[in-house]
């Protein structure tokens, strides 16, 4: 099933990616081909089959409500592209 350019652009926006014309063209073709291949799955009758989201049947993996030492702010911010004091700085969010 081919994917249209518009759909590719929409998906790109959802993923916060942008493409040049050439890239958009190429991605549209590549994705179309790949998604076409995925159509194979519709050959299979999966009615009544439970989806598997986890390989093992683990459940109820908890931790207790105990405070553990946090990381020092310097370490949390050590890779920050922009910071001020102990805050991360980002371009202002227009609301």
């Amino acid at each position, binding site marked *: 099933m081919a994917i249209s350019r518009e759909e590719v652009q929409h998906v790109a926006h*959802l993923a916060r*990616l942008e493409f040049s014309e050439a890239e958009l063209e190429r991605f549209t073709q590549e994705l179309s081909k*790949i998604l076409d291949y995925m159509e194979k*799955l519709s050959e*299979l009758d999966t009615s009544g089959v439970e989806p598997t989201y986890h390989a*093992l049947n*683990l459940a109820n*993996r908890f931790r207790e409500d105990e405070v553990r030492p946090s990381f020092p702010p310097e370490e949390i911010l050590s890779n920050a*592209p922009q910071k001020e004091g102990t805050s991360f700085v*980002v371009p202002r969010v227009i609301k």
Partner: protein
Amino acid sequence: MQRLSILEIREKLRKKEISSREITEYYLSRIEKLDPQIKAYLTVTREEALAQAQAADEKLARGEELPLLGVPLSVKDNICTKGIRTTCASRILENFVPPYDATVVERLKEAGAVILGKTNLDEFAMGSSTENSAFFPTRNPWDLERVPGGSSGGSAAAVAAELCAGSLGSDTGGSIRQPAAFCGVVGLKPTYGRVSRYGLVAFASSLDQIGPLTRTVSDAALLLQIIGGPDSRDSTCYPEAQPDYLSELEKPLPRLKLGLPKEYFGEGLSDEIRIKLEESFRELEKLGFELREVSLPHTEYAVAAYYIIAPAEASSNLARYDGVKYGLRLEGRDLLDMYKKTRSQGFGAEVKRRIMIGTYALSAGYYDAYYRKASQVRTLIARDFEEAFKEVDLILTPVTPTSAFRLGEKTQDPLQMYLSDIFTIPVNLAGLVGLSLPVGLTSENLPVGLQIIGPHFSEPLVLNLAHRLEEALSLNLNPPPE
């Protein structure tokens, strides 16, 4: 000090035949000499390694015994190492220095290992050739014009070329097993949940596992022992303790039934590989095991299911790379622009491709047809194995359809690259154990790997059989010296 396995190094260190400093320097000088051609490493931590070796020697002198004391290893660069750059072979994390160690790295350190550096990979572990690294491709030590496989290509090449005694890689669709096969080393993908993923930069969370790449099966058993086991920081990590793999290794085996799934031995498999595998099957029969045909009927759907599930989870796991908290930031007109520029220029083409597929598969209107459907097919594939394991104890398959291909050979057609993962992917989908064992060389002098697949938590059995076969074949493969 040449061509030593981890166990041999450990033995020599304990007997004081060599020192950790010596063996560490041995590898460091080989790295200096050979890595400019092979390019297995992204970061070599020379000073830290020598310091660790020094500390190890002091402990050894005091008679302290730790399971990996003084043994030099490398770690794939998508596993967090505190204070050491962890790039995932991506521009978006080019200068990211984690403030913490992955659980597996903590355990290596507790065991006294020396860490030589971080190895190259396909960007964010997405790829089968290490050509998707944002920095440079790694080359196969057996033929520098060929790929080492991927995504743990750097780890496999480093082990094969003796640039470390062993390495940790990660496997989501074959990323340990396939490069192990291409490079002629042992590669083990443990049962899903056997090894903690805490500190492994996530690609596809329900499929990823960390595992060892080593020269011998015993080495793999030792490394698994060290890195595996319960971890309360990973909810998906199995909470029961591990058995003792090394002691299990020597146990006599019953007359195992070994299954050969007919779907894996069809047309796509190269003749040379087929021949080498059949030789190993004869060996196994000689050892007294029974080989019989089984069927895994949904095999042909595995790649399609995988290439929906893995990218879907990846698109989600990679959403965090946005220039706000760490990594690359490219300024833009506003926040949205910053996000888009940072991500578009920070991620390579294959990563973007998978993010796009994954985002699409999860998006409104498509979730049921893609992600949910693929997850249902995943159930069918897991059931195939469950059924097969009622008839046989372990399953034997090829690892790859061909031996190592040339750089650039498959980069034009992503789909072709995906299809070559056909033998390894189903194992991740079902969360089973998969081990790749070198079983010979093609006429072009390229390694061939045999995959041994076992049910959940059957590592002792898989390792034992692999060890037995390894002994019988007694290959001792080494790439041509440079």
